[in-house]
C-alpha cells in the first residue's frame, strides 16, 4: 500500500497580534497513518488543529490536502472535503437528543441541507446509519437522551461520534481522553482504534499510554515549531524531546 | 444663508446635544461593558429624571434643588431595578436581562403617563439660565451653555474617578474582566449594583437638564434611546472614550443634518447604526462585541 501524503503543511505560521503561536510548522501526514501530536501546554497544538480545520486563518504558509490547497477555507468547506475534528472541550448540541446530534452530521454528509418541504423521516437510511454509528460509539441505548445530560465519558464518546459521522478521510482528535479515568481511557482507546480503521488519524494527546498504543508516528511540538517527528521508539530516545518535556516517561 | 458665520453656532448646537448624549451613553456603555446587557430602560431612566425634576420643582420651586435630588431618586430606581429584577434573571442569560430591561422601559413609560399625564410638561428654568449670551457675533441661549458646562464637569469628574481612584480602577477592571475581579475577592454583585446606580444617576441628571431643552413627554425616553444606541454601538460597547467621540459625532450630524436635510436627519442615524453594525460590530474604539 502506498503511503502517500494525504495532508501536509508548508511553513505554517499563525500570529495573534504580536503573539506568534505557530512558528513555521512543516509536516507531512501519511495516508492511513496514526499520527500523534505531543507537546507541553501552550505549545500550539490546538491552534494547529484550528488552522487545519479552518477555524483560524493562517498568517502565512500553506495547507495541502490531497494535493489541493485548502489554506483559508471555511470550516464547513474543509469538512465537506473530508477532514473532521473533535474538540478538547465537548462541543455537542446540548438540547438535542444523542440521536439527533449524530443524524445532523449525516444529513450534512448526504447533502440534505436545505430541504424545507419533506419530512426528514422520508430519508429512511438516515435512521439506520445513525443507529449504526451510535452502536459503534456505544450510545445506542441512550439515543433519546438529551446530549447535555450525558455523563462526561458518554459526552466524549458522542464527541467522537459526531466527528466520525461525516465519514472523513482525515480525523483530527483533540485530547479525546482528557479528564478520563484509566478505565474510561482504555475504552476510549478501543473506540478510537475501531472507528479510525482505514482512515488517517491525527491525535493530540497528553496521555502517553494512548499515544504509544495508538500512534505509529509522533510529532512533538514546542512553542509552535516541530521539535521532532518519528516513530514512537525514535521519539522516546530523542534528546531534544526529553528536554522539551522534562521528565516524560 | 451665510454658512460660514453660522458654523460656530451649529457646531455648538451639536456639541451641546452630543454632550447630553454622552452623559447618557457613558452610563449605558459602562453597564454594557460590565454586564453584557444593553439597558433598554436607560431612556426611561432619563425620562423619569425629567419628571422627578418637574415634581421637585413643583414642590420646592427650586431648580437647583431638583438638580441635586432628582438624579439621586433616579439612582435609587436604578438600584431597585438591578437588585430586584436584573439580579434574578441573571442566571437565564443575556437575552432574559435584555427582555427585562425592555419590559421595564414599557412599564415606566406607562407609569409616567398615569402619574403625570400624557401631555408634554413645561419645566421652569431659573431666570439666570433663561437668557442668552452673546458669542460669535450672535446670541446663544444660556441654558444650552449650562447643559454643556454640566456635562463637561461630569465628564471630567467621571474620568478622574475612573482613572485616579481605587474604586474607579476596580470598576474599569470589572468592566474588562469580571471573573478575574471576582476571583481577586471583590464583591462583583455589589459592583454591578453600584455601577447600575451610577449609570441611572447619570441618566437622571441628563433628564433633569435635558428635559427643559428637548421637551418633557412620556415618549422622550424612546426617542433618545435610538440615538443612544447609535452612540454606544458606534463608540464601542464598553468604551467611555468611544462614547464621547461618538456622542459628539452624532450631535454634530444631528445639528447639521437638521439644517441641510431636515427630511433625512433621522435616516442618517439609523443608516449609521446599521452601517456600523454591518461593517464593524465592535464600533470605533471598543474591543468587546
Amino acid at each position: 500500500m502506498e503511503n502517500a501524503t494525504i495532508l501536509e503543511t508548508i511553513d505554517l505560521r499563525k500570529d495573534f497580534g504580536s503573539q506568534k503561536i505557530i512558528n513555521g510548522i512543516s509536516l507531512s501526514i501519511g495516508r492511513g497513518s496514526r499520527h500523534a501530536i505531543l507537546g507541553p501546554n501552550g505549545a500550539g497544538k490546538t491552534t494547529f488543529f484550528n488552522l487545519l480545520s479552518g477555524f483560524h486563518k493562517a498568517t502565512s504558509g500553506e495547507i495541502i490536502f490531497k494535493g489541493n490547497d485548502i489554506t483559508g477555507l471555511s470550516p464547513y468547506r474543509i469538512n465537506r472535503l473530508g477532514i473532521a475534528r473533535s474538540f478538547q472541550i465537548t462541543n455537542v448540541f446540548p438540547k438535542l437528543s444523542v440521536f439527533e446530534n449524530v443524524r445532523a452530521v449525516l444529513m450534512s454528509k448526504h447533502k440534505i441541507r436545505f430541504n424545507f418541504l419533506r419530512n426528514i423521516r422520508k430519508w429512511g437510511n438516515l435512521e439506520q446509519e445513525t443507529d449504526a454509528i451510535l452502536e459503534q460509539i456505544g450510545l445506542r441505548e441512550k439515543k433519546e437522551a438529551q446530549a447535555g445530560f450525558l455523563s462526561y465519558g458518554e459526552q466524549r464518546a458522542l464527541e467522537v461520534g459526531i466527528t466520525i459521522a461525516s465519514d472523513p478521510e482525515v480525523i483530527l482528535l483533540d485530547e479525546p481522553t482528557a479528564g478520563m479515568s484509566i478505565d474510561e481511557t482504555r475504552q476510549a482507546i478501543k473506540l478510537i482504534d475501531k472507528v479510525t480503521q482505514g482512515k488517517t488519524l491525527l491525535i493530540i494527546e497528553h496521555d502517553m499510554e494512548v499515544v504509544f498504543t495508538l500512534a505509529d508516528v509522533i510529532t512533538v511540538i514546542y512553542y509552535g515549531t516541530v521539535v521532532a517527528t518519528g516513530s514512537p521508539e525514535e521519539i522516546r530516545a530523542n534528546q531534544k524531546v526529553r528536554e522539551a518535556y522534562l521528565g516524560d516517561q | 444663508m451665510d454658512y460660514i458665520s453660522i458654523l460656530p453656532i451649529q457646531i455648538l448646537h451639536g456639541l451641546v446635544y452630543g454632550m447630553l448624549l454622552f452623559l447618557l451613553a457613558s452610563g449605558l456603555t459602562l453597564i454594557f461593558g460590565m454586564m453584557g446587557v444593553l439597558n433598554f430602560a436607560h431612556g426611561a431612566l432619563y425620562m423619569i429624571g425629567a419628571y422627578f425634576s418637574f415634581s421637585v420643582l413643583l414642590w420646592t420651586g427650586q431648580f437647583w434643588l431638583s438638580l441635586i435630588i432628582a438624579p439621586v431618586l433616579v439612582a435609587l430606581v436604578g438600584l431597585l431595578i438591578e437588585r430586584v429584577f436584573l439580579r434574578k434573571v441573571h442566571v437565564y442569560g443575556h437575552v432574559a436581562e435584555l427582555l427585562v430591561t425592555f419590559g421595564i422601559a414599557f412599564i415606566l413609560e406607562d407609569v409616567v403617563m398615569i402619574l403625570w399625564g400624557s401631555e408634554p410638561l413645561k419645566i421652569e428654568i431659573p431666570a439666570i439660565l433663561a437668557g442668552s449670551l452673546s458669542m460669535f457675533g450672535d446670541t446663544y441661549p444660556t441654558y444650552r451653555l449650562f447643559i454643556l458646562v454640566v456635562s463637561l464637569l461630569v465628564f471630567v469628574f467621571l474620568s478622574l474617578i475612573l482613572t485616579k481612584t481605587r474604586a474607579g480602577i476596580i470598576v474599569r477592571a470589572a468592566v474588562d474582566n469580571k471573573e478575574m475581579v471576582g476571583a481577586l475577592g471583590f464583591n462583583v454583585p455589589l459592583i454591578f449594583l453600584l455601577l447600575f446606580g451610577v449609570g441611572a444617576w447619570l441618566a437622571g441628571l441628563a433628564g433633569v437638564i435635558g428635559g427643559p431643552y428637548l421637551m418633557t413627554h412620556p415618549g422622550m425616553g424612546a426617542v433618545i434611546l435610538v440615538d443612544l444606541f447609535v452612540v454606544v454601538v458606534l463608540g464601542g460597547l464598553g468604551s467611555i472614550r468611544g462614547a464621547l467621540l461618538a456622542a459628539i459625532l452624532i450631535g454634530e450630524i444631528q445639528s447639521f443634518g437638521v439644517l441641510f436635510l431636515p427630511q433625512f436627519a433621522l435616516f442618517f442615524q439609523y443608516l449609521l447604526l446599521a452601517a456600523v453594525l454591518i461593517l464593524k460590530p465592535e464600533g470605533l474604539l471598543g474591543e468587546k462585541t
Partner: protein
Amino acid sequence: MTHYRIWNWLFLISFLALLAFLPGLIPEFSLNVVITMLIYSLFAIAFNILFGQAGLLSFGHAAYFGTGAYTSILVYKHFGLSLFPGILAGGVFSVLLGVIFGVFVVRLSGMPFALLSLAFNMLIYAVAEKWRTFTGGEDGIAMQRPDLFIPGFGSIDMFPTVNFYYFVLIIVVLCIAYCWWFTKTPLGRINVCIRENEERAGFVGYNTYTTKLLVYLVCAFFCGVAGALASSFDEFVSTSMINMVKSGDILITTFVGGLGIFWGPIAGVCFLTYLNDTLSSFTKHWVLIQGAIFIAVVMYAPDGISGLLLRIKNRLFDRFKIEKG
C-alpha cells in the same frame, strides 16, 4: 407514546371543528377578536421560527408584518387585485425585503443581531412615514376589502365578517400547519442545531450563513402574510403596523406564550389578546399590565405560559402515576 398521540390529534380536530362552527356560536364583535387572534397567532408562530427555534432575537420584525400590510393594501388600490393575490403579494414582498435585510443581519447573532434588526425596522419605518404620497404616512391608507376570486367558481364577497373569518381561518391554519411541518424538515432541524451550537454546525459541514438566511426568509414570508391579513381585516394600513411598538408587541407576546413549545406563541397571543380585549373597557393602562405580565414571565416562568401549563400537567400526571402505584 401513541396513546398520547391519539389524544393530541383528537384535541386538535375538536379544536379545529370548534373554530369551524364558531360563527354560529358567538356574536360578531367576538368573532372580530378571534380573527385578530388568528392573524397574530400566525405572526407569532412565524416569529418564533427565528426567536425560539433559531435562537435569534429580532427587535424589528414589524418590518415584515408591516411590509405585508402595506403591500396588500397598495396592491388592491393600484392594481385592483382580489384578496388572495393581495395576501400572497404581502408574503412575497416581505421575502424580498427579507433578502435585502437578511443578507446583512444574518451574519450576526445575539445583541448585534437584535440591534441591527432594530435599525432596519427604524429605516423602513422612516420610509413608510416620509413617503406620504405612496404610503399615506402616519395617516395611512384606507381600502375596502376586495372579493375573494376563485377561478372557475366566481367571487365571494368578503365584506361580511363571517366570510372573511373563514378565509382567514383557512389561510392561517394552512400556514401554521406548514410551520409545524417545517420543524420536521431537514432545514427545520438544522435550524435548531445551529441554535444549539452554530460553531459545531459549521464544523460538520453546514454553511450556517445560507441556512440562517433561508430560515429568515421563511419567517419573513409568513410574517408578511400575517400583516397582509391584518391590513385586509382592518381595511386600513398605517405606520402603526410597521413601528417599534408592533415589534415590541410580537416579541412580548411570543415570549409570554413560550418559546420552547410549538403552540406556545399561540397561547401567548390568545391570552394577551383576550386580556387586552376585556381589560381595555376597564382601564387605559393595558400597556402597564402587559409589561408587568411580561416581566413576571421573564423572571418566574421563562418558558412561558405554555411551559408553565405543561409543567403543571406533568406534575398532575405524575401524581396520578404515583397514586396508581
